[in-house]
């Protein structure tokens, strides 16, 4: 992966390119609309969907409230089952731990599956720097890796690519990474899948170390859970001798009983399936079955800071189903790359500025990457009120305030570049609390109405570049009302 997330421009600039790219918009529109319709159908099949959604929300909230306790319980269960638990406060620490663990095996290659957490910390690059090559084995991740690209969707990281583009990437790049693509490869799904299967199989059979993420961790038994569609995850989890799982601390659920809820809501929300084709669970190590060494790296990287925020913490309920991306009109036009993180779309817009802080240009712009239409909240299977968090984070950007960073309370200053807006908001607030002033302004606008342009200069230019402004009426309503008392005095 040569693309980078750091040093990204702010969202509006990053989105501009995508909006102008017809192929990209076509690919995204097609993919999101198809899955959107399927999801809606899959959800209506379940009569108690509203209750499942509420249950998922409550289980997650309860777990987050007692996260410390459940994490300790998890560590005990994993250790008892023969695994080793490592705690990583941030990306650097996590990358060091994993690099060390791989080096201890003496290997210089690993197979990887299902791990957004490792994308978040840029583990592949860290391993590369240590001379270790990481092979992505999830089909979409493979396409992204071979294309020297960045993921643009939670579930389908290569959603921005169409079949023709994938064929070209396979033909061009596969030989660099292992078994080359067959001669004369076409863009039929079956042929593309077969090419990937042959390419990957060699890697599975050779690899001694596997690195994975997890969708859930069950505290009571120390069990990790991955749900997937291809079976490549299962290969990664069972064939290597050493398995290293890197998982965000918020992925925990207390009991197997709790899993029942999410194993219903996750597949229906994400792939519109009733059940995942592959659900793998692993608990420590077992003689003669699967990896003989198991390491669990528990990743914080901004999560406890996020937990400290009363409004924002609900983002940690996310089960990464991607329903909010697929329904989001902004994601559909801007594409996943514009969000500057492995977490794109509405959830990315609230998660990244919390995990990373609002210091960078891209992170300060993400809370504004939404029209607050509410479609994301409506589909979210754990009822994260994304619009509420967006507005909350906007407040943090423009007004500053107290936040927790690396466990310490710090007071943020308002972000730069909002001074004019802040002054305008204050002036408007003043006028709106002084009705007389508002009226004077309205009258002045009406009197000069013939001179108003239908396009605007300055910051308003962006608006009127593609839209005409309405003409200012001859008389504001309140003047008409006062003149006629709502028509009661006769005049119209």
């Amino acid at each position, binding site marked *: 992966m040569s693309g980078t997330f750091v040093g990204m421009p702010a969202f*509006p600039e990053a*989105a*501009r390119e995508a*909006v*102008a790219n017809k192929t990209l918009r076509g690919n995204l529109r097609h993919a999101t609309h198809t899955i959107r319709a399927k999801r809606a159908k899959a959800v209506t099949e379940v009569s108690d969907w509203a209750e499942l959604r509420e249950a998922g929300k409550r289980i997650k909230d309860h777990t987050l409230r007692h996260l410390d306790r459940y994490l300790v319980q998890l560590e005990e269960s994993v250790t008892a089952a023969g695994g080793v638990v490592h705690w990583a406060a941030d990306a650097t620490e996590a990358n060091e731990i994993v690099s060390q663990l791989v080096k201890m095996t003496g290997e210089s290659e690993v197979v990887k599956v299902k791990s957004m957490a490792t994308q978040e910390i840029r583990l592949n690059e860290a391993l590369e720097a240590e001379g270790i090559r990481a092979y992505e084995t999830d089909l979409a991740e493979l396409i992204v890796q071979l294309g020297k690209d960045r993921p643009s969707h939670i579930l389908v990281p290569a959603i921005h690519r169409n079949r023709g583009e994938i064929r070209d990437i396979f033909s061009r790049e596969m030989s660099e990474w292992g078994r080359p693509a067959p001669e004369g490869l076409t863009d039929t799904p079956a042929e593309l899948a077969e090419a990937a299967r042959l390419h990957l199989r060699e890697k599975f059979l050779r690899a001694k170390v596997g690195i994975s993420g997890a969708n859930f961790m069950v505290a009571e038994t120390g069990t990790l859970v991955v749900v997937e569609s291809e079976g490549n995850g299962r290969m990664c989890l069972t064939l290597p001798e050493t398995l290293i799982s890197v998982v965000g601390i918020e992925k925990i659920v207390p009991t197997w009983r709790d899993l029942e809820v999410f194993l219903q809501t996750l597949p229906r929300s994400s792939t519109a399936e009733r059940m995942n084709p592959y659900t793998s669970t692993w608990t420590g190590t077992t003689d003669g079955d699967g990896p003989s060494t198991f390491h669990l790296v528990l990743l914080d990287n901004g999560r406890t800071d996020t937990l400290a925020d*009363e*409004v924002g913490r609900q983002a940690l309920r996310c089960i990464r189903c991607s329903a909010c991306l697929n329904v989001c*009109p*902004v994601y559909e*036009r801007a594409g996943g790359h514009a969000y500057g993180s492995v977490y794109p779309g509405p959830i990315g817009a609230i998660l990244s500025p919390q995990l990373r802080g609002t210091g960078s240009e891209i992170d300060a712009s993400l809370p*504004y*990457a*939404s*029209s*607050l*239409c*509410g*479609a994301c*909240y*409506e589909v979210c299977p754990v009822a994260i009120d994304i619009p509420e968090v967006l*507005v909350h*984070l*906007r*407040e*943090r*950007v*423009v*007004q500053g305030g107290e936040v927790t960073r690396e466990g310490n309370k710090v007071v943020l200053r308002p972000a730069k570049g909002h001074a004019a*807006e802040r002054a305008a*908001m*204050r002036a*408007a*607030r003043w*006028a*709106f*609390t002084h*009705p007389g002033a*508002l009226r004077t302004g*309205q009258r002045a*606008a009406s009197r000069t109405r013939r001179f108003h342009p239908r396009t605007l200069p300055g*910051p*308003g230019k962006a*608006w*009127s*570049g*593609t*839209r*005409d*402004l*309405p003409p*200012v*009426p001859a*008389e*504001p*309503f*309140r003047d*008409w*009302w006062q003149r006629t008392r*709502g*028509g009661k005095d006769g005049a119209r």
Partner: protein
Amino acid sequence: MRVALFLTCVNDTLYPDTGRAVVKLLTRLGVDVDFPMAQTCCGQAHYNTGYRHEAEPLARHFSDVFGEYEAIVTPSGSCGAMVRELYPRMGERARAEGRGDTLAATLAPVVPKTYELTEFLVDVLGVTDVGAYYPHKVTYHPTCHGLRGLGLGDRPRRLLQAVKGLELVELPGADECCGFGGTFALKNADVSAAMGTDKVRNAESTGAEVLCAADNSCLMHIGGTMTRLRTGMRPVHIAEILASTEEEPAV
């Protein structure tokens, strides 16, 4: 019944015809309408852009102005949602910040009394046929805050279906946001414009002459896009359709 018209600052300044239509319609239905002159703005733009502290005095002002009325009617789904959904939240946040219950107590009285126009007609007055006449082909765009914020459901459609002469045609992708989103249209102009264009193209595909909605802010965005794309379609607020009669038809 004496109700207060909360017209909203946008309508007052830019769309007085919508205000006149609401007055005409409600008066025809036997409602005594008052327009408190001290009204200004509900604070939505402030709140949604992140200026909650600037929005608070506006919310308090709103409560001062409207608190005494039996009902408050507004021809705007988003301003209605601001009062009903976000005023309580502002109260909660003030409490969480250790500022006590004062704000919540000040805002509480207006929250349950505030109705979006179509809600007021259907739920409070109990009418769907308001005696309107509007001989045009119309498509209806349910704006996001009306649809998901207030849960207006099929109320506007039922009202439109009962209008004499009106042919209602379904809008493809009706539930999708038009891309206005207040300051979003300025801050993310490219994405906003792309969303608006798709909305207008969908509307065009229906063959309707008029796109109707219950919020002039969205209509301003959609209408501005329509003229720029030279579609020949017109954006019209639902109040103006419902106020139109055979004796006094809206143009």
